[in-house]
């Protein structure tokens, strides 16, 4: 039966890449709906009441189900579509607990630091705001300590939760990808000075699903550059359905 395709409401932020990466690993078709959150499109009344009351992307629609929070999205895909594409979660309760643990480590130890670097060095410059270099330095130092632990872990097994690629690894690649593009001194080195971490990143970067994700991600960035309007960034609740209609692009997944 040909059901309605899944829709991914997607914008310029690495968590969107994570959702796309999950969809591609599962070889799932989806329609990409571009949301320019930087321009406030995720804070319209329509978005807040229909998609995500916290005004953030990504949001996945699968039939009547609407999901937000990238880790809830990828876990859903891993379970609902277990028999399709890559198996992203083990069946055994204890093995699954280790995957959950590394996803929590991502959320609580790695991502707060990496996302601050991304915000300071990528998002703020794009918005014309000033980078806080003290914050950058602090976060680089803390991230170095965290990555020492990853380096030790990846000396014990190929992937974070064991010998197979799982959701735990998947979630790390998009922010690392952004980090590796930064020109700021020492950021790339956080990865490349650690051989086990580097090997892990390079293995993941060669996955076909990742390559598709990069193409889509770069396309989203292009869409954003084409559709940015000179508008106030401080009027988040202005009704912008007209603008959303004009700028939302629907792209078929190939």
């Amino acid at each position: 039966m040909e059901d309605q395709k899944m829709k991914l409401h997607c914008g310029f932020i690495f968590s969107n890449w994570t959702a796309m990466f999950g969809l591609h690993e599962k070889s799932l078709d989806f329609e990409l709906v571009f949301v320019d959150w930087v321009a406030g499109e995720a804070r319209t009344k329509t978005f807040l009441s229909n998609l995500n009351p916290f005004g953030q992307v990504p949001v996945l629609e699968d039939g009547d189900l609407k999901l937000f929070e990238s880790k809830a999205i990828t876990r859903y895909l891993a379970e609902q579509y277990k028999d399709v594409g890559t198996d992203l979660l083990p069946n055994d309760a204890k093995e699954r607990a280790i995957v959950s643990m590394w996803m929590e480590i991502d959320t609580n130890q790695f991502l707060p630091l990496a996302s601050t670097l991304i915000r300071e060095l990528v998002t703020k410059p794009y918005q014309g705001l000033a980078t806080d270099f003290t914050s950058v330095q602090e976060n680089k130092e803390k991230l170095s300590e965290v990555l020492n632990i990853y380096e030790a872990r990846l000396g014990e097994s190929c992937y974070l939760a064991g010998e197979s690629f799982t959701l735990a690894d998947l979630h790390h690649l998009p922010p690392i990808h952004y980090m590796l593009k930064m020109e700021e001194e020492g950021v790339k080195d956080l990865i490349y000075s650690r051989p086990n971490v580097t090997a892990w990143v390079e293995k993941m970067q060669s996955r076909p699903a990742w390559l598709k994700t990069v193409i889509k991600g770069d396309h989203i960035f292009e869409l954003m550059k084409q559709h940015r309007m000179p508008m106030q960034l401080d009027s988040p609740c202005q009704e912008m359905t007209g603008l959303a209609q004009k700028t939302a692009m629907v792209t078929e997944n190939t």
Partner: protein
Amino acid sequence: MAGIKVFGNATSPSTRRVLLALHEKNLDFELVNIDLKDGEHKKEPFLSRNPFGKVPAFEDGDLKLFESRAITQYIAHRYESQGTNLLPADSKNPAHYAIMAIGMEVEAHQFDPVASKLVWEQVIKNFVGLTTDQAVVAEEEAKLVKVLDVYEARLKEFKYLAGETFTLTDLHHIPVVQYLLGTPTKKLFTERPRVNEWVAEVTKRPASQKILK
């Protein structure tokens, strides 16, 4: 009986999250005290249990875990048929599980960072003899208001955050909510009728009372 051990501190919200799950499931366990004031969590042998130096760490037979929300999820699944069900009623349905998962992510990303800062400013700083920074409290309360407004709308539709039954989503909030009830921030809960009812419901549970002792 396989030995369940928790390595943590009975006053720490993260440790309490795990203790709540164990009490809800009526599971026997040993709490091995880690002296946070003494920095025991930043030294061996604790660091071998959690190299990130944070409580709690956990053991169930040969399984060793850390990160409170991974531990509670493990307990909820592994002991699903025992004690309170902490998963959605139809836990094998990925769509239902996903709704609970959203709530757990919202707690971790939207609620906890803000609520924990408020606990730090108003509870922990006082305890160690430092002064509360009221400007920070005001700033963080403004953020918490936005989250609680979403919860208020949600709880008008459902009895609990993930649906009609108590789940991990609700449980994860309890330790920090309990601390905030002892601060002026409590008013943000009492001002919202459904949030207020939910707070009363979840904090009066026997397991919630046990962790305060």
